[in-house]
C-alpha cells in the first residue's frame, strides 16, 4: 500500500492546490465528486425503487396481519357475546315458561278442587235436605200416630174409669189441648 501511495504521489507532481493535507488537495476533488454523484444516485435509486418498498411492505404486511387478527378477534368476541346473550335469553324464556306452566297447573288444580268441592257440597246439601225432609215426614207421621194412640188411650182410660165410651169429639179436643202444652 505504501508503494502504491508512493507511485501516486510521483504520478501527481504539484498541481494546483496540491497541499500536504489530503482533504485539502483540490486535484482529487473532481474524481471524488464524480464518484460520489454516481454512488449516491445509484444508492438513492436502489433504495427508493427496490429496497425501501420491500422493507416497507414487510412492515406493512405485519401491521395489516396484526390489524386483521385484531378485527377477527373482535368479530369472534361479538359472536360469543351474541351467543351468551342468546343463551341467557333462552334461559330466561325457559324460566318464564316453567313459571307459566306451574301457575297454570296450580290454577287448574285449584279450579278442579274447587269444582269437586262444590259438587260434593251440592250433593251433600241435596242429601241433607232429603234427610231433613225424611225426618220431617217421619216426625209428622210419628206425631199423627201419637195423636191417634193418645186418643185411643184416652178413650180406653175414660171408658175404664167411667164405664162408658166418651164422645169422640171431646177426646180429640182434649188430646189436642194436651199436645199443645
Amino acid at each position, binding site marked *: 500500500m505504501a508503494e502504491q501511495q508512493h507511485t501516486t504521489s510521483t504520478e501527481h507532481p504539484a498541481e494546483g492546490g496540491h497541499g500536504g493535507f489530503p482533504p485539502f488537495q483540490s486535484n482529487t476533488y473532481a*474524481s471524488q465528486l464524480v*464518484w460520489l454523484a454516481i454512488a449516491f444516485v445509484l*444508492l438513492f435509486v436502489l433504495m427508493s425503487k427496490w429496497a*425501501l418498498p420491500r422493507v416497507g411492505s414487510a412492515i406493512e404486511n405485519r401491521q395489516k396481519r396484526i390489524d386483521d387478527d385484531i378485527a377477527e378477534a373482535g368479530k369472534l368476541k361479538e359472536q360469543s357475546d351474541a351467543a351468551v346473550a342468546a343463551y341467557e335469553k333462552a334461559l330466561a324464556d325457559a324460566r318464564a315458561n316453567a313459571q307459566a306452566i306451574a301457575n297454570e297447573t296450580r290454577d287448574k288444580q285449584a279450579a278442579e278442587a274447587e269444582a269437586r268441592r262444590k259438587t260434593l257440597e251440592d250433593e251433600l246439601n241435596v242429601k241433607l235436605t232429603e234427610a231433613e225432609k225424611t225426618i220431617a215426614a217421619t216426625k209428622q207421621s210419628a206425631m199423627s200416630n201419637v195423636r191417634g194412640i193418645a186418643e185411643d188411650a184416652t178413650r180406653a182410660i175414660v171408658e175404664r174409669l167411667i164405664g162408658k165410651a166418651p164422645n169422640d169429639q171431646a177426646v180429640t179436643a182434649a188430646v189436642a189441648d194436651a199436645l199443645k202444652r
Partner: protein
Amino acid sequence: MAADPIHQFRIVELFPIAHIGNTEIAFTNSAMFMFAAVIIITAFLIIGTAKKSLVPSRLQSAAELSYEFVATTVRSTAGHEGMKFFPFVFTLFMFVLTLNFIGLVPYTFTVTSHIIVTAALAIMVFLTVLLYGLYRHGFHFFNLFVPKGVPIAILPLIVFIEVLSFVSRPISHSVRLFANMLAGHITLQVFAGFIILMGTAMGAIGWIGGILPFGMIVILMALETLVAFLQAYVFAILTCIYLNDAIHPGH
C-alpha cells in the same frame, strides 16, 4: 511514515478513467469505498427482507429497525408531508453511517473525512431545501427569513441574521461531519503512533509501556463508534429540520 497521522486520508488512485481538460478523473480508494457502502447497504436491506417473514429474523429486524428509525425521525421533525423525502433522508443517513463505520475498520479509508464529500452532500441538501421551498411556496418561501411578531425597527437586522444563518447551513452541516471524522481518526492514529514510537525507541520496556496508549485506543474506538453513528444521525436529522423549513416556512 507509518506514524504519520494524515497518511490514512490520502487519496490513492487505483486507475484513471478520463481527462477533462487539466483535470483527471480517476477511480480512487475513496470511490471504491463509496461503492462498497452502496453494496453493503443494498445487500443488508435486500437479504434482510428476502423472506419477509411475519416474525422477522435478526437481519430482517435490523433492516426494519433502520427503516423505522429513519421514518420516525423524518415524521417527527418534518411531519407527514416530509415523508416524501424519506428515501432521500434514508439514503443520506445509511450512506454516511456506513461510510463512517467502514472507516473504523483498520487499513480502510474514511470517505466522510474529506471535506469535499461532506460539502457536496450538504450543498445537495441545501439546494434541495431551497429549490423545493421555492417550488412549493413560491416567493412565500422567503417568509422563512421574516419571523412574525418582530418589531419593525429591528426587522432588517433579524432578516439579515436569518439569511446569514440559512446560507451558512451547508458550511456547518458539512464541517461538523468532516471535522468529527477527521479528528477522531487523527487521534486514533496519534495514539497508535505512540506505541510504535515507544517500542522502537525503548525496546522491550517501550513495548510494555505501549499498553497505555493501546488502552487509550480501545476507549477511543468505542467513542469513535458512537461518534460515527451520532454524526450520521445528526447529519440526517439536520437534513430533516432543513427540509421542514422547505415544507413549512414561517416560524
